[in-house]
């Protein structure tokens, strides 16, 4: 069809391009002056020509990095971003591994399917929204509405680890997955409306949480042995990714943790006159 031909003329298609410069396994892109779409065109071309590792320098707000990297053949690569990643980093991400040497803006890991995102800095609002697989590690804090409507299903459980604190509405409508907020600064969590409408999954907070900080559907309980084992495993992974963090695993684990879980898998049953 005419339409198809014209489209593939300007967008990298699904077959590797002959004569592409990127035969090498590891390559770099200088993102200065590149529009979002141009940068993602380059990334896709590199993926299709077999690059396994790409370093992008001077990233300054370009969006959707990692989003256009799905292929039916499941080519995978590792991406190192230097600079500030723009909105929707790793949205719909399918298996790739992305590290940001810097901060990330809103929407990191939006509806992410699988893979790993590491942010050596801070992440903005709506972090891990509707994420349903893979892992996200944020060294410092994150903004509002993190982990909204995260979900899991058999054999696939997303994990979000945040080294700092989280703002209000953490885990709203949460339906699955694991969220660990390490609150490294040691200040108690001041966010409100945590877990409103929650009906699955679990949130672990280092420190404590008051009843007035969580939604009516949420139960607060101290983390038990099994919980602490799980937390410890992810704290180890967190520290592996951020060796610069000035706390040891034991120091982090020395604090109490609380667990936020939903009271019911069916928060709205009984609402209707059948």
């Amino acid at each position, binding site marked *: 069809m005419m339409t198809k031909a*014209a489209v593939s003329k300007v967008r990298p298609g699904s077959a590797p391009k002959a004569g592409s410069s990127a035969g090498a396994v590891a390559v770099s892109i200088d993102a200065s002056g590149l529009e979002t779409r141009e940068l993602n065109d380059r990334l896709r071309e590199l993926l299709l020509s077999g690059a396994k590792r790409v370093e992008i320098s001077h990233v300054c707000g370009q969006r959707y990095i990692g989003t256009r990297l799905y292929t039916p053949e499941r080519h995978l690569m590792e991406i190192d971003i230097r600079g500030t990643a723009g909105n929707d980093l790793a949205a719909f991400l399918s298996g790739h591994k992305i590290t940001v040497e810097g901060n990330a803006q809103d929407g990191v890991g939006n509806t992410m399917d699988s893979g790993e995102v590491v942010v050596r800095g801070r992440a903005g609002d709506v972090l891990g929204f509707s994420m349903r697989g893979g892992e996200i590690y944020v060294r410092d804090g994150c903004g509002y509405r993190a982990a909204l409507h995260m979900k899991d*299903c058999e054999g696939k459980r997303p994990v979000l680890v945040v080294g700092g604190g989280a703002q209000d509405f953490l885990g709203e409508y949460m339906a699955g997955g694991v969220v660990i907020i390490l609150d490294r600064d040691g200040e108690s969590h001041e966010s409100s409306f945590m877990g409103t409408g929650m009906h699955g999954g679990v949130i672990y907070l280092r420190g404590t949480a008051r009843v007035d900080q969580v939604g009516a559907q949420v139960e607060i309980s101290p983390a038990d042995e099994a919980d602490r084992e799980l937390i410890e495993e992810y704290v180890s992974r967190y520290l592996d990714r951020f060796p610069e963090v000035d706390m040891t695993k034991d120091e982090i684990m020395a604090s109490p943790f609380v667990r936020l879980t939903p009271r019911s*898998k069916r928060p709205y049953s009984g609402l209707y*006159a*059948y």
Partner: protein
Amino acid sequence: MRSFVFPEFEIIRDEERCGSCRGCERQCALGTHAYDPVADRLVSDDRKCAGCQRCVIFCPQKAIVVRPSPSFYRPNASWSREKIEDLKRQAETGGVLLTGCGSDKPFRIYWDHILLNASQVTNPSIDPLREPMELRTFLGRKPEMLEISREGKEVEIKTELYPNLTVETPILFSAMSFGAISYNAFKSLATAACRSGTYFNTGEGGLPREMRGEFGRCAIVQVASGRFGIDAEYLNVAQAVEIKVGQGAKPGIGGHLPGEKVSAAVAETRMIPQGTDAISPAPHHDIYSIEDLSTLITALKEATNYEKPISVKIAAVHNFAAIASGIVRAGADIIAIDGLRGGTGAAPKAIRDNVGIPTELAISSLDRRLREEGIRNRSSIIAAGGFRSSSDVIKAIALGADAVYIGSAALIAMGCTLCQKCYTGNCNWGICTQNPRLSGRLNVEIASQRLSNLISAWSHEIREMLGGMGINALESLRGNRDHLRGVGLYEWELDVLGIKGAGE
């Protein structure tokens, strides 16, 4: 608590004809009919009857009649029987009234007040049996202009074209998710869409993996506020992606599939645990503005390599045309508007019957608004909500729609009788249920044939009506309000529709 509500229906059994075969007992999942071995006869409990007529159609002896129960309260123009009984149900349960299907309230149906034109003497009519008639429709953004280069006999389009959906007739199946409807009903829609050169819409319940290879080529997949069943493959096997913001039957509110309906297969397709409520929040929590919507539209274009049109579906509400203008500017290639009579598997009755505006008025104001702003080419319009016949469809096209979505009409083709009990999950017709005993009643081959027959019949009728107007391509009728006239409408209604009164 004893219920003070009348049975809705009355079951009349002709004992002479009844052979006590117990067929009705097996057909009714609501337990209306039961065999009394002592009396050797079937007895029916009117209270359990949903009025779906399954037992009536399947009774081999034609021994059953189900009709609205004739009991009445003292006649009262303000307190109708429905108002009294709804109130009683709420007094008995303290709950929100749920219902299914589109609104059944007597709002004006504008289709029935609009008449089509036909050619007489001049501009002769065309016989579609003899002449080619073009119904093929392209949905998606069109360029402002076409730059063409020509070298000798080689002609090339220089302008970058945008991805478009090609549909052979302007009728698509509206979003109905696997979970809301049964697997067999879902697969029947998919099968018929592929066979008839049109598309089905997955709704927000995902697309079962085993269907992706065969049916992706005629699928529009939805991304809704619950983000169920979405992975990169789901987005990429489809031909278009639709962001569902609103639905005509329940504008402004979310939805949830009750845990009872989340079977193992539904859970796997939605990618959630079995038995949990599948909750779709009222808004998308990553969309609080047109700019946010633009971000999601672009994210989906990125996720599909700019190869697929992105649609945004909204409910038609009071100021929606201004919002739609923003949606077009946000990058939507298609806008789907769902009007007042749009259907649903479950919605609060208060919302379904009181929120939104009629589809007919919505199509006209949206088309006009986008034309006035000079951006009509940037988005196609798919209208939804209450299309009952080919004449409704052709009138919608003349009012400015590019194509229509049919939901209830498609379900009726498969056997639905609009009993409005979809939310119980006990659909005796095997459509709106996850009970394998019930869904097994719907044969995919037969149901998809009925759907394809409907598409083919309506398409023929559209060709006939087009030919009668002296038009041989649907494209020439789009937004061509000169071919419409109103009867029995107020001035303001004619103005909103942009049509003249009959005889004018």
